[in-house]
């Protein structure tokens, strides 16, 4: 019996070598004597991303070069559809530094420690916590991915954060592309500790008027849980916003656009009449859009009421029954305009202070407290009293 040579390769310690990976290809080449042929491959590749730091040095525009080196390339990089530069290539320095912040060892999640730190500093008693990148999850073409991630995030948030910290609340993510999954989410988690509402992330392409959602709205109304529309951007996913070539443009428009869209459909389909006790809260679109939509819809309604027979009063009257978060409050110069906006939306009872911390355009409570046209009662309502009432805190 011949003794065969035996070789062993332990893949757990063997380093990757292209020649090993392609050993069978080499064998084919030898068997076919391919080395005697002239073979030209007209489509070969390398991964230039591995050398992107070097490539970026070759960008001739110095400002673009700086940005490219800061953002990198790939999934969230400078060229990606989801790429962004919210912190202005490091100008909003607190964001990158905060990730390195040390927290004391504790039994509970780091997010609780970090959140309580900034809450105490800003003087916030209770916050409603939202995710960040997942605000854009509704634009994924993979509905099953949205549902799975939404359930995972909600479960994680309930178990790891809400269960351990009474000052942190949440309005859970509704996977809006799957109406049945929305219903199940409310059934499964609507009674969990710290859950004070449910959120539709506004960037998505489903009409809020679709009959498939009526059960979701009815369940929330019955449970006295507000429905929140939290706006965001979809730079890569929206054809109109793709025309913007600056983050400032896409942010200014995108964060208002999606809530303008859903608000308009919400009104024109008379959903406030169908669900009169369902509280809706419109978050992170600022305030300037509200008088615009009020005036626009009122004007159209007076001429085309037959088209929206479900409405029993002016669109602006319905909008004055809804709730709005304050940030980012457009307060740069025109105090008179801001005061008018406060009056139009009945801010004393309908406006809810929000910081959006730690995002780049956060507002402190002083943005409300320092407004000269508000009396003490209005300030207290907007900073906390209204939210206490709306969310049953």
């Amino acid at each position, binding site marked *: 019996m011949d003794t065969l040579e035996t070789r062993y390769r332990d893949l757990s310690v063997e380093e990757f070598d292209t020649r090993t990976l392609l050993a069978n290809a080499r064998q084919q080449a030898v068997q076919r004597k391919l080395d005697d042929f002239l073979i030209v491959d007209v489509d070969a590749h390398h991964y230039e991303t591995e050398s992107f730091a070097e490539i970026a040095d070759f960008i001739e525009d*110095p*400002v673009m070069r700086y940005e490219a080196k800061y953002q990198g390339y790939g999934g969230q990089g400078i060229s990606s559809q989801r790429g962004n530069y919210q912190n202005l290539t490091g*100008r*909003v320095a607190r964001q990158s530094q905060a990730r390195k912040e040390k927290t004391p060892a504790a039994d509970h999640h780091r997010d609780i420690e970090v959140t309580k730190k900034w809450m105490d500093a800003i003087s916030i008693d209770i916050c409603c916590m939202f995710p960040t990148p997942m605000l854009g999850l509704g634009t994924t073409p993979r509905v099953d991915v949205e549902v799975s991630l939404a359930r995972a995030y909600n479960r994680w948030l309930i178990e790891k954060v809400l269960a351990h910290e009474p000052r942190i609340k949440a309005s859970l993510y509704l996977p809006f592309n799957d109406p049945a999954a929305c219903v199940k989410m409310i059934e499964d988690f609507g009674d969990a500790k710290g859950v004070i509402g449910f959120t539709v992330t506004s960037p998505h392409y489903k009409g809020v008027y679709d009959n498939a959602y009526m059960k979701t709205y009815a369940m929330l109304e019955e449970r006295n849980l507000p429905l929140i529309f939290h706006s965001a951007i979809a730079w890569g996913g929206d054809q109109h916003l793709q025309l913007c070539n600056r983050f400032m443009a896409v942010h200014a428009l995108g964060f208002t656009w999606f809530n303008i869209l859903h608000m308009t459909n919400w009104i024109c389909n008379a959903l406030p009449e169908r669900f009169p006790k369902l509280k809706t809260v419109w978050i992170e679109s600022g305030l300037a859009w509200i008088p615009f939509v009020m005036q626009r819809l009122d004007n159209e309604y007076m001429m085309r009421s037959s088209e929206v027979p479900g409405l029993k009063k002016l669109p602006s009257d319905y909008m004055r029954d809804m709730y709005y978060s304050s940030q980012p409050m457009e307060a740069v110069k025109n105090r008179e305009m801001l005061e008018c906006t406060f009056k139009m939306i009945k801010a004393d009872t309908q406006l809810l202070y929000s910081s959006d911390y730690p995002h*780049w355009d956060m*507002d*402190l409570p002083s943005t409300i407290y320092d407004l000269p046209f508000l009396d003490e009662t209005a300030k207290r309502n907007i900073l906390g009293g209204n939210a206490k009432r709306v969310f049953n805190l």
Partner: protein
Amino acid sequence: MAEVLVCRNGEMKDDTVRIVKTGDVEIGVIRHEGKYYAYRNLCPHMGGPACEGVRMPGIEELIAEDKTYIGQRFVMEDMHIVCPWHSYEFHLETGINTCDKALRLQKFNVTEKNGEVFVSV
């Protein structure tokens, strides 16, 4: 007016900041290209620690004679102080906001004598 010691001359490296607190006032002393600048560490926008952010040069657009866009360039001679809270930007030389001349950081005089750097408060 009191003179408050900031550092020995040469102690601060270029492009660094030292925060000096005297009484209730925090002052950011910035050393840039060998020169010292001192501003109150308080952003007139929302009260952020303006001097604790980065310094970045201004940027200008390059537009060709036919009005087409070419690109951008850093204006290295116009360094900005950038507030770390909301990136409001102020000219390092003057403390004046880059978008609104009515907004400015409170400026303090810096003097050097006997090998030491002082800020006048």
